[in-house]
């Protein structure tokens, strides 16, 4: 008896449009996720410059540091493309190398984020008393500079930014935290695929859709970060926004 069925082989079943079910579901999910991040970013923008107390973005952000981690994350998207290309060409070894480098770069990004969160929570304000120009100081620095009395050259004080501190803290940690959670989920997914690729028949050029979907998700998370980096970091530090 012939055994051609509509559900036997998930990837080859004929569909009305010819597109794969799972890929279409992934696109629908990403559309939904756009609204998720859109709402978080909208909340961030509504509360931008509305914090009643410091620290504010200018106090804590280090654009240089975050530019490095952003670059690493964007490069991980490139290595993901190369990994998928290698898989479709049947080059398993190359595939594993690029996939592993994607995972390492993604993990580096998460590492940067953990470091950054830690640094923000323990943020130390340093004011050099000898050259104070009140116009250049942020409100928190101005407050700390009250400690400048005769004979003191430098005041230091820990003014940490936590989710409870002010509106900036609440919106910043929630937005970037959920992005970090998305990256972490992607790392678990990619690591699972990496480990499965050593088991025979689990990750093959014919079944490249499994990797294709993970890659789609990974690129989406990268694109979201580009928006967050621009809206939160760059607009937060450079005047005029």
């Amino acid at each position, binding site marked *: 008896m012939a055994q051609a069925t509509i559900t036997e082989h998930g990837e080859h079943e004929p569909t*009305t449009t010819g597109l794969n079910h799972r890929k279409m579901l992934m696109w629908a999910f990403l559309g939904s996720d756009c609204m998720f991040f859109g709402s978080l970013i909208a909340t961030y923008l509504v509360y931008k410059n509305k*914090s009643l107390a410091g620290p504010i973005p200018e106090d804590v952000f280090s654009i240089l540091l975050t530019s490095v981690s952003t670059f690493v994350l964007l490069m991980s998207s490139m290595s993901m493309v190369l990994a998928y290309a290698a898989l479709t060409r049947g080059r398993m070894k190359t595939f594993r190398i690029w996939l592993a480098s994607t995972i390492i770069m993604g993990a580096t990004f998460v590492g940067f984020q953990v470091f950054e969160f830690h640094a923000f929570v323990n943020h130390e304000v340093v004011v050099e008393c000898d050259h104070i120009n009140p116009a250049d100081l942020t409100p928190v620095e101005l407050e700390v500079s009250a400690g400048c009395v005769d004979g003191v050259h430098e005041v230091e004080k820990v003014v940490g930014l936590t989710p409870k501190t*002010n*509106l900036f803290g609440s919106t910043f940690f929630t937005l970037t935290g959920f992005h970090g959670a998305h990256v972490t989920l992607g790392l678990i997914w990619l690591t699972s695929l990496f480990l499965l690729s050593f088991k025979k028949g689990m990750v093959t050029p014919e079944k490249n859709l499994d990797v294709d979907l993970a890659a789609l998700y990974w690129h989406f998370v990268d694109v979201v970060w580009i928006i967050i980096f621009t809206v939160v970091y760059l607009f937060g530090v450079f005047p005029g926004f």
Partner: protein
Amino acid sequence: MTTVAFPIPRPKHPTGVWNWITTIDHKKIGVLYGVTAFLLFLTGGLEALLIRIQLASPGHEFVSPEVYNQLFTMHGTTMIFLAIMPLSAAFFNFVVPLQIGARDVAFPRLNAFSYWTFLSGAIILKLSWFLGGATNAGWFGYAPLTSMSQNPGTGIDFWIISLQVLGVASLAASFNFIVTIINMRAPGMSFMRLPLFTWMTFLTAILVVLAFPVITVALIELYFDRAFGMNFFNVINGGNPVLWQHLFWVFGHPEVYILILPAMGIVSDIIPTFSKKPLFGYNAIVLAGAIIAFMGWMVWSHHMFTVGLGPIPVTVFTLTTMAIAVPTGVKIFNWMGTIWGGSMDLRTPMLFALGFIAMFTIGGISGVMHSMASSDAQQQDTYFIVAHIHYVLFGGAIFAILAGIYYWFPKITGRMYNETLGKLNFWVTFIGFNIAFFPQHFLGMDGMPRRIYTYSEGMGWDLWNMVSTIGALILGAGMLLFMHNIVRSWRKGELADGDPWDGRTLEWSIPSPPPEYNFAEIPTVYDRDDWWAKKRGNVKHGVPVSGGSGEEEHSIHMPQPSYWPLVVALGICIIGYGLVYSYTVATVGTIIGVIGVYAWSFEPVNDPEDEDDAAH
């Protein structure tokens, strides 16, 4: 195919309760959705009756003020998220694959997951009554009523968590139906040949996919405020309660159309069938539905006219709200055009469908009244609004759902309902509904506010409150008649054949109840009302529009049952309780969920070893 071995074997051919627990058959999941949602509808109705008894006379102390606040909040939340949405989902599940000529949905296990997650959310919400009190801040949970300082109990937390869990269920179901409707249509079933109910399901699913993430974010922010002392809605640190209102209604207004579009779809299928005419203005109705779905995103601030948004936003939202009445009016005129000159058969489904048109029109007109901001300022937070929403959601959505239950009852059960009881049910419900809710227009115009616990004598509200309560009790009697009819007919009703209504769409071309595989041979569609045309030999023999999978099947393989959707949903339920009580419990839930997800992804849709069994 290599598979990873898991210690628990796959359920092979379960029977009895296990059959229902592990099922991934869209028809059984549809029945599960329907029965569960109807029971929850009864709990919401009971809450409503208690509210009406409390308000029956001035100074009444039937329940305490604390319980009263919980009653109206739970009534609203239950009816919207646990009754109307899942009752619509019951029809999506049962009817849509049959209408498009498919054997199941695109992701059968995801479908089972949607149901079990919905059940988890329902349990979390409803059991909060017994775990220290239910939520009491109104169904829209305005900040700062929900803040920890104002509302320290667990009621709000249970409300937040249950809505999140229900959101996961709705999102999963909607992804599934979007893919199913785009990708699993029978050969020749082009989009402009889709039955209206399937069309409206498709639009509803898109709305859910885009609207639910917004409430998810709002609820996350509220939860973070309460659990971790963040500042999103904390006025002391600069938080703005109006942000909650915006986020809530950006979700909440599309949600209104999520509730009503499936109802419009049901009615659009029933009216042509019982008028024996094709639907008048099919293209216009589809287009009107799409415009409603699109414009539903542009009207949310009409819920906030009295907040003080300023003249420009208020003017803009007044105009958009008036404009959205136009496509709704187009639909109503097209339904009337369908009836016009038709040979009407006034069976119970048709009576409810006609009741829908009349009641929904009244609700729509009072809606246009408060689209004008100046008029709305008088009506905001009065019983006029309560009357309006019950005319659109009970007279509208629930009437259409009852029509749909009667219409598809023979298809679902293979038995006929009792027509006399059905008609009696309609008239008692229709009269009770109007006695209960029409006087609330007067109460609202006389200034009676919503959500008040009681009122004093001499306000001029005594008579109509008593009338409204009597109407609510009649409405309750109507629902008892409905249950009696359904339960009795399900057990020993007359047997129904495959096509008792001389139907028009594909679900009537197969036996009642449908076999597990739905269609022995996937049909090829040549016409909009394909089954009607085929019965009359009017088939235009053309080339079907798009490709499909008609011919190559010699034996039918259906996807096999699975435990894993239930395991993942159980994990989510435990996480939900964990987020209220203890993060250790939440961790345990996460572990169960993750195990479920991995086992699910490694489980093939069909076990190759079992295929020989299935073929015979």
